[in-house]
């Protein structure tokens, strides 16, 4: 007749110790009394009674059982905090270094995130693609991808392959560039797309008014919010009329939220119906409907849910046809239809030339640099904490003697490193906030820190944990391994071998810094080299402007006269494309002594008279076009590269003929009038294209105006006068132009971005390494104070002591340089190989970097070394 043991156990488990005696006793007594009448009831009553004691009044205090570990953690916190405060200098160095490293890692991480977020704005991101043609490209030993397609291909896809796609849309931007959108007196220039009605739904545009079927009417238009604001202000834009290019009138049927900066169509501010495009370009229906050669439109498709591009591509290959004369070439190139997925648009652009960097490669570099700089900062942390270990050897000894297990010590040191990392992280977040605007302007991206994104925070957390583990691992393992007896006796210092890992880390750190520095110098050297390249024309004070509207028709002479009359313009010309680009090229050329096996392609640009004078080209043989000689209309001017390909000894007066591929019966016979110096119109890293200039009128129409401002007139004075002329003669066109030197400078954009970033990273890497060195130097001198005291007593001079203390570190840095130089050489010669027009890797770059590294090391170390060397030996010898 014992009460059930399980229930008593349960009672003892939860009940307060000071009550258990009485309660258990009374319960048992009651149970026994009840048991006499009914054992079954007694059991039930006993259990029920026990349960009734489960109330706050009788339950053990939970705190009591846990207090030992909380105490331990708060002790860790206290000890960690004290050691941070006591070694203020070290802590600042440590946290600063780590914070800088983390800032760079955060910035780079956010950048990479931003790049990968491209186009994800569109709901159907994963299923949208552009129709393209792919095939072998013998020139680059790879494949090419063309995304500008023929009209009949689109007709074929829509007519016979429609079931393969959920949505399909043709698209083209206006051939004249930006469109003039006018509502009443308000006019703005903006780029836009002509598309089939499906496009809006495909891109899942966020419609602020109207819906995705807003483009079904021919004279309709869907505009971006920003355009609506600019044209109509607060007024409701729906059903308002906009005049496009002073020609077609369209009615606003929808307004969409402006596409964010990280989308392909970001610049597109309006969508207009495809039928309107056909109306504006009547030549399409006359000539292009069945022309399998004329590539001028884009085709976008969305595949159905659950299908992959790889499944769809074989189904649609049959849609591609070729003009009879192209069949052979197409077969040789294995030309076929493909789908170019939206997810590849941003990071895997097609047909990169040798000197252009794959965006994904750039991102990999950014990631690698971020990682390395973070590693540098972690190495600092490791070095400084192990160096400080001597000071804490006694603490470790006492802890071990009292009974700390090794595991506890390890967790203690991890805890401390976690504390430092948290501080560094907070500083890094603040620094990233400060640096973000500057950083995104360098990266020329509109990058923002995604505060609201849970993934960002998850990444940050992971990042903190990884960094504290990485940075705390070595100190934790090293410090906890001390033998308590030796540590307490005061010579817990290990032998010479102990500093070896520390030295190796310093070498590693400096190797990375030196590699970064050399790379930076080389990148800048290459940019400077390309910038110094003779361009063959004069970019200063040259204004370029596309003739955007029919309003320019027949106005050229009057424009030119009026502009010259202002006294600020020295010459005006027309050309096909701006001076900083090549818009057209042709093959089919023949001349005396041509290799009949090879059909060379030349850049072919038609220009007006006096174009040479306007852009300032340099004639080296023969003469420019002469307006007074009518025969010059069949004359050509070629550049040096073209001359080199033709291989003519006396080019002037030589006949050159051209056969039009469209109609072989059309043969033009030209005569070479002059040869000009090569002009850098495309990439400054590439050889100049062989170019042929002819007079406008019979081959392609010049679509750009070039205006040369007189060199003796200030631009600020000239521009208003030029503008007023344009306003008077072509009032319907907004005055928008670009400067040749600006456009030229843009060609260096990517490389300059890389150079700027590399220099910032290199500078910070050096800073971090120096911080580490500073901490280490002060540690070394501290441990050697007694030795130095003895040396001084025996007569060592300050100079000798200084040399002795510094040379150790200088050796380390020299070793680092030796390790870094071949790596940097390998990396940079690979990079430079991308550029046909490139600088060399001269020895001085390496030499200067090495000398710089040594000087910086000396500077960093000397402060501590000299301070120690100047110390009074009595003070340090008396310490015992």
């Amino acid at each position: 007749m014992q009460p059930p043991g399980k229930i008593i156990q349960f009672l003892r488990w939860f009940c307060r110790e000071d009550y258990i005696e009485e309660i258990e006793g009374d319960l048992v007594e009651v149970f026994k009394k009840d048991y006499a009448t009914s054992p079954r009831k007694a059991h039930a009553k006993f259990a029920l009674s026990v349960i009734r004691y489960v109330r706050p009044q009788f339950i053990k205090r939970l705190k009591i059982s846990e207090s030992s570990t909380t105490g331990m953690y708060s002790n860790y916190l206290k000890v960690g905090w004290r050691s941070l405060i006591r070694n203020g200098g070290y802590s600042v160095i440590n946290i600063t270094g780590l914070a800088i490293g983390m800032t760079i890692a955060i910035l780079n991480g956010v950048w990479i995130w931003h790049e990968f977020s491209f186009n994800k704005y569109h709901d159907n991101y994963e299923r949208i693609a552009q129709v393209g043609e792919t095939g072998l490209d013998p020139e680059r030993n790879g494949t090419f991808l063309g995304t500008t397609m023929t009209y009949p291909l689109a007709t074929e896809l829509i007519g016979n392959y429609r079931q393969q796609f959920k949505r399909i849309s043709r698209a083209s931007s206006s051939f004249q560039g930006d469109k003039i959108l006018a509502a009443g007196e308000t006019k703005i220039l903006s780029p836009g797309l002509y598309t089939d009605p499906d496009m809006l739904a495909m891109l899942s545009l966020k419609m602020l008014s109207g819906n995705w079927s807003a483009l079904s009417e021919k004279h309709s238009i869907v505009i971006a919010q920003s355009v609506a604001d600019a044209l109509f202000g607060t007024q409701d834009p729906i059903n308002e009329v906009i005049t496009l290019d002073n020609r077609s009138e369209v009615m606003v049927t929808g307004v969409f939220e402006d596409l964010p900066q990280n989308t392909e169509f970001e610049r597109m501010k309006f969508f207009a119906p495809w039928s309107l495009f056909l109306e504006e370009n009547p030549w399409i229906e006359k000539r292009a409907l069945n022309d399998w050669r004329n590539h001028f439109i884009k085709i976008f498709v969305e595949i159905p849910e659950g299908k992959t591009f790889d499944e769809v591509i074989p189904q649609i290959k049959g849609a591609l046809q070729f003009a009879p004369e192209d069949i052979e070439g197409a077969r040789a190139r294995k030309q076929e239809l493909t789908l170019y997925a939206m997810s590849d648009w941003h990071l895997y652009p097609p047909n990169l030339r040798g000197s252009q960097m794959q965006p994904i490669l750039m991102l990999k570099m950014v990631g690698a640099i971020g990682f390395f700089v973070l590693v540098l900062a972690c190495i600092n942390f490791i070095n400084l904490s192990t160096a400080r270990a001597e000071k804490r050897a006694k603490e470790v000894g006492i802890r071990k003697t009292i009974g700390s297990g090794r595991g506890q010590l390890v967790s203690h040191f991890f805890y401390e490193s976690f504390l430092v990392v948290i501080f560094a992280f907070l500083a890094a977040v603040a620094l990233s906030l400060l640096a973000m605007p500057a950083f995104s302007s360098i990266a020329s991206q509109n990058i923002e820190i995604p505060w609201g994104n849970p993934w960002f925070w998850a990444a940050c957390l992971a990042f903190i944990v990884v960094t504290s583990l990485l940075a705390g691992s070595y100190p934790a393992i090293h410090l906890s391994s001390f033998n308590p007896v030796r540590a307490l006796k005061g010579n817990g210092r290990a032998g010479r071998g102990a500093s070896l890992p520390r030295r190796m880390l310093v070498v590693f750190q400096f190797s990375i810094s030196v590699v970064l520095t050399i790379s930076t110098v080389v990148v800048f050297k290459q940019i400077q080299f390309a910038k110094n390249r003779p361009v063959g024309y004069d970019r200063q004070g040259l204004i370029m402007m596309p003739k955007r509207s029919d309003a320019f028709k027949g106005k050229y002479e009057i424009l030119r006269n009026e502009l010259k009359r202002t006294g600020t313009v020295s010459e005006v010309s027309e050309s096909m494309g701006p001076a900083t680009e090549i818009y057209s090229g042709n093959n089919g050329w023949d001349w005396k002594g041509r290799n009949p096996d090879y059909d060379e392609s030349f850049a072919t640009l038609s220009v007006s008279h006096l174009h040479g004078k306007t852009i300032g080209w340099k004639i080296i043989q023969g003469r420019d076009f002469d307006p007074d000689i009518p025969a010059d209309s069949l004359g050509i001017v070629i550049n040096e590269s073209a001359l080199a390909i033709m291989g003519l000894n006396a080019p002037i007066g030589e006949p050159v003929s051209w056969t039009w591929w469209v109609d072989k019966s059309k043969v033009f016979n030209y005569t070479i009038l002059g040869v000009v110096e090569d002009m850098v119109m495309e990439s400054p890293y590439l050889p100049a294209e062989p170019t042929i200039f002819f007079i406008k009128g019979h081959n392609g129409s010049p679509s750009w105006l070039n205006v040369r401002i007189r060199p003796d007139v200030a631009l600020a004075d000239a521009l208003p006068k030029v503008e007023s002329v344009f306003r008077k003669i072509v009032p319907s066109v907004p005055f928008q132009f670009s400067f040749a030197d600006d456009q030229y400078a843009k060609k260096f954009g990517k490389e300059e971005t890389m150079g700027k970033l590399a220099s910032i990273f290199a500078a910070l890497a050096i800073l971090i390494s120096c911080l580490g060195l500073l901490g280490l130097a002060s540690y070394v001198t501290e441990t050697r104070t007694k030795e130095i005291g003895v040396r001084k007593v025996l007569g060592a001079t300050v100079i000798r002591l200084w040399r002795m203390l510094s040379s150790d570190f200088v050796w380390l840095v020299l070793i680092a340089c030796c390790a870094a130089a071949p790596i940097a050489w390998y990396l940079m010669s690979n990079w430079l190989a991308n550029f046909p027009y490139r600088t060399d890797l001269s020895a001085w770059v390496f030499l200067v970097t090495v000398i710089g590294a040594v000087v910086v090391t000396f500077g960093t170390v000397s402060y501590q070394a000299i301070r120690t060397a100047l110390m009074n030996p009595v003070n340090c010898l008396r310490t015992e």
Partner: protein
Amino acid sequence: MSQHTLGEFEELVLLMVASQHDDAYGVSILAGLEKDLGKSLNISAVHVALKRMEDKGYVKSRFGGITEDRGGRRKKFYMVTALGKKMLDVQFELRNAIYKRIPKITFG
């Protein structure tokens, strides 16, 4: 008076502690109450009241000797304190005074 409260059940337990002078412990109080009230109670209710009154200072306790009946556990004896006794007096006076004001009426 305001900080000194005494619930109805507490009052009964306190009366029982006082009446069983020096011999009152959990089970005896329970038995006494069950007998006087004529209904069965749970021991936990008695304990709750005792602990509350001990906190308020109406009773004090001491441990007694070990008894076989109790699985080797000691009894805990309760005694009414001066404050407890005063509380009982006050309660009694109060009720008595009000009771006396009831007019002499006979009910049906």
